[in-house]
């Protein structure tokens, strides 16, 4: 490069060509077509995308952006959730007062609001994403299995929301979870008031009763109490997000492997 051309370089270009920048982002400042494609390929996060897309794939009218927003909300919920975990203790003694403190004592006291409303919004964006995929027939071969993975993710989203519902430990929380988990009591065979449960008996001794059925396992007791709170806390913060992340990885990977975003032939 001659000295004259060097003078024309902007600060950004100078930075982009520096050893430090190039060691992190190899493409440099993405100005040429080649660099722009490399910017996607060389970045682990952006590499979720292909480097080039058909024109309809970047139109909001086609995608509604709902899948992306669902993932974005998952990230928002993870970050706000981590922040909330610094303050919240999942015990009957402290849970409710910690929630009050989250609004009144903690700096930036809208973390819980963002977390809660974000969770509701995520249920909606996931539903709308499903509606979009249905309306465009994008579940058709070869994308059948990815639709199924999506349905599992939707179920996990609702279960995540449901387990989080209990944590504030207010009237709304315990009674909503009581109503929800009472269903488990009626599970055929493994619920104490489900059809067929009475068949599982040795002589006069019932194997499935209120102290051993699936509801007991979910709640860690005969009613929504201290053990339930801890159980739902662990499910909500670790177990279900962990499972959801595995399915998300499969979901995103399969989009690419099934031929990228759907579109008319």
């Amino acid at each position, binding site marked *: 490069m001659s000295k004259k051309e060097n003078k024309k370089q902007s600060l950004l270009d100078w930075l982009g060509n520096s050893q430090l920048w190039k060691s992190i982002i190899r493409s440099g400042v993405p100005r040429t077509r080649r660099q*722009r494609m490399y910017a*996607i390929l060389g970045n682990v996060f*952006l590499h979720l*995308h292909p*480097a*080039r*897309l058909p*024109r*309809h794939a*970047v139109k*909001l009218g086609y995608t509604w*952006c709902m899948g992306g*927003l669902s993932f*974005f909300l998952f990230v*928002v919920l993870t970050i706000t959730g981590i922040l909330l975990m610094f303050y919240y203790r999942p015990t009957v003694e402290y849970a409710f007062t910690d929630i009050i403190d989250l609004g009144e004592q903690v700096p930036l006291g*809208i973390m819980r*609001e*963002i977390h*809660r*409303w974000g969770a*509701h*919004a995520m249920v*909606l964006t996931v539903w*709308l994403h499903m509606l*979009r995929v*249905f*309306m465009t*027939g*994008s*579940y*058709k071969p070869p994308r059948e299995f990815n*639709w199924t993975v999506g*349905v*599992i993710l939707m179920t996990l989203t*609702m279960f995540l929301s*449901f387990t989080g519902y209990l944590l*504030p*430990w*207010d*009237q*709304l929380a*315990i009674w*909503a979870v009581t*109503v*929800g988990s009472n*269903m*488990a*009591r009626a599970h*055929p065979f493994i619920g104490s*008031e*489900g*059809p*067929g*449960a*009475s*068949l599982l008996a040795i002589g006069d001794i019932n194997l499935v009763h209120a102290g051993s059925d699936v509801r007991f396992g979910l709640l860690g007791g005969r009613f929504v109490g201290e053990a339930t709170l801890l159980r739902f806390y662990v499910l909500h913060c670790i177990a279900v997000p962990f499972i959801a992340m595995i399915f998300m990885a499969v979901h995103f990977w399969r989009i690419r492997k099934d031929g990228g975003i*759907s*579109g*008319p*032939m």
Partner: protein
Amino acid sequence: MVAFQAPCKFMLQYLKDFIDYLSAPTISFTLLTVMFPFVFPPTDWFQKMHKKLGFHHMWTNKGGIAGILLITAFFVMGFLDKNFNIILTKPDNFPIILMTYTMFFFIWLGMKKAYVNDERLDQGKKPDEYHDPEDKVLVWPDLVYIELIALILFTVFLIVWSILVAAPLEEPANPAATPNPSKAPWYFLGLQEMLVYFDPWIAGILFPLFIIIGTSAIPYMDINPKGDGYYSFKERRVGIFIFMYGWIVLWVFLIVIGTFFRGPNWNFFGPFEFWDPHKIEALNNVNLSEYFWVIGLNKPLPTNPLVRESIGILATAFYVFLLPPLLAKTWLKDMFKAYGPVRYSFLMLFGLLMLSLPIKMYLRWIINLKYIVSIPEWFFNI
């Protein structure tokens, strides 16, 4: 002015009473179900009527604006009404208001685009989404910037929402004080509404399980290869009709009922009605076995539960096991041929289970039927 106000108030009250009347599940569910094939026509005849009755105007810009205005008018009226205001302004019900708008808007948007494409396909053109496959765009910058903007706008929306509306928090948990009504989280209220008609083992276990399995199985049940990758209606009208009925009527609409129209003791209340905890609804539901033995044959109920419930068991067995092969031989002959025995059986299972909800609803409403099969000894009630 005063002379003008009185009739106005009277008219408004009349309108509210009318909406309350319409909202009753018996009326609103029936209206929705009857209107549904005219809005999402699955056959040629319905398609013709759909055009004749002018329902296709719903999926134009004018229809969209009219829909949004109608929903807004309903909520504004509700906000100004002292009874509905209490329910509408509960912070936990805010997502449902958002749901009502977004569901309407996106169903409208999808259908509008579908109709545009249908017309294009009729004219022999490619769908609106089609572009020359060689003409691609670069993800950097054409997509990443859109994503960045969407992300920023949504973050702003979320922060503004969080500043304006405090997250719901009621009194500290008290296991001794059961609220009336006790409601599940809003996205499960459709299932809770099904509890009115079915026992928990069906409404709370079997239905959710089959909703998940059935929804997962859609790509394997829908063997129509058309309409892949673009909005369309005509090419997939039966599939869209079934999906939309399940989605709008049996899921979203039941959530709206469960949220806005179910008060103390899970009794029905019109949106503008006061939630009176002492409202009494006569429960005079009768089991099928009682209809058969006591009312029909004028005999006491047999003591053996299998004999007592034989009619119900036979009816259920006929519905689940005999109806599918019967239909395969007669009315759905062509479908059976196209689908093959395995796919057909699963489709029938999902379809019949889905249909069992409206069937049970109408049996309840018309002949006060409590259970088709009632063996409380084994917790086995259908």
